[in-house]
């Protein structure tokens, strides 16, 4: 008696891979051109893209999800299901450790240091993809300048001319390493010669040089404080 062994036919998949290789290349090129890939990640199953909800021209988004999120801070995410032929039904974010990373809608909040996978769950509780985030306890707050060319941490003092504008945003750090996430902030201004504007972005303020003078901008968040001395030159 001859028994035939069970088998799995992968021929269709191999053809599919060959056909799909050019599509993968195009997708990679598209991602490289869009610049959105530095703000997010692809799910572990390759069926979703998860990016920080942010204008792609705004360098305030530059930490993206490439770095851990600061404990006490939150981020709002944009989810794109990329699985072929699937229109998801009310995707929900489900944290495997809500005591470390809590989810509400499309917002994630770091509650305690550690890792947590975030499941992208369909309305029927089927998981389409997942990704893992790390939360770290911040040790410092620094002010960054947000411009079209830089999002580097600022020195302690900068000079402005009358009419100059500079957008400031605070970032959390853990022992010198940048962290992601935004938390409630308090901004104060001492001195004269400049104004501080709230232009509707909870994560930044705009400083405008009005007249020659000096002063200090202070931002407090999660118990940390960052200061910047400003001098407005004539």
């Amino acid at each position, binding site marked *: 008696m001859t028994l035939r062994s*069970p088998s799995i036919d992968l021929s269709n998949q191999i053809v599919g891979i060959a056909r799909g290789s050019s599509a993968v290349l195009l997708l990679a090129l598209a991602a490289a051109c869009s610049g959105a890939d530095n703000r997010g990640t692809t799910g*572990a*199953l390759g069926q979703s893209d998860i990016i920080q909800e942010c204008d792609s021209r705004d360098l305030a988004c530059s930490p993206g999800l490439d770095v851990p999120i600061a404990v006490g801070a939150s981020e709002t995410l944009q989810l794109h299901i990329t699985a072929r032929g699937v229109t998801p039904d009310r995707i929900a974010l489900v944290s*495997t*450790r809500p005591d470390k990373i809590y989810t509400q809608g499309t917002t994630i909040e770091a509650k305690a240091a*550690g890792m947590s996978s975030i499941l992208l769950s*369909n309305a029927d*509780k089927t*998981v389409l993809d*997942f990704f893992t985030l790390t939360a770290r306890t911040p040790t410092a707050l620094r002010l960054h300048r947000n411009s079209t060319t830089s999002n580097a941490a600022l020195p302690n003092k900068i000079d402005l001319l009358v009419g100059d504008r500079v957008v400031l945003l605070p970032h959390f750090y853990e022992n010198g390493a940048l962290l992601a996430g935004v938390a409630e902030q308090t901004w104060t201004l001492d001195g004269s010669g400049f104004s501080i504007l709230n232009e509707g972005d909870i994560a930044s303020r705009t400083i405008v040089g009005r007249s020659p003078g000096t002063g200090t901008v202070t931002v407090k968040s999660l118990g940390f404080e960052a200061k910047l001395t400003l001098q407005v030159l004539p």
Partner: protein
Amino acid sequence: MRAALLALVLCGALMGCRHGRLSALTTSPPGAVSTLATDDSVTSTLTLTEGIAVALECNAMDGLTCDLNRLYVAPNAIAPVYLGYGDFGVQRRTTSNGATTQASKAVFIVTGARVGTQVIDVPAGSETLKLVVNVIPQK
């Protein structure tokens, strides 16, 4: 000795030596562990860092499919399990009597909610695969 030999002959005659299997589709992130080891013909052990999810694929023996709709683990368990969707194309399976089935991969997601050990029964065709999940603390 004779009994063992008889079992071996019966095993070969009935194709009972071939069993379903579980395999990992995803890896763990840096600083975490997700290791799937096969202990015996029907038992596998998954070592998983708490808070981490891993996608596993189930393949039943003899061309049968894994009925993951019967897979249930309470949400408050040590290792909650979710049904997964995998856009991985269609697999064609052929049974020993020549019948074929075509279906998408049977995928489920195991998550390490808290430290401990949990045994999960995975319906795989006519047998049940045992998955022992050891959830270990984060570093």
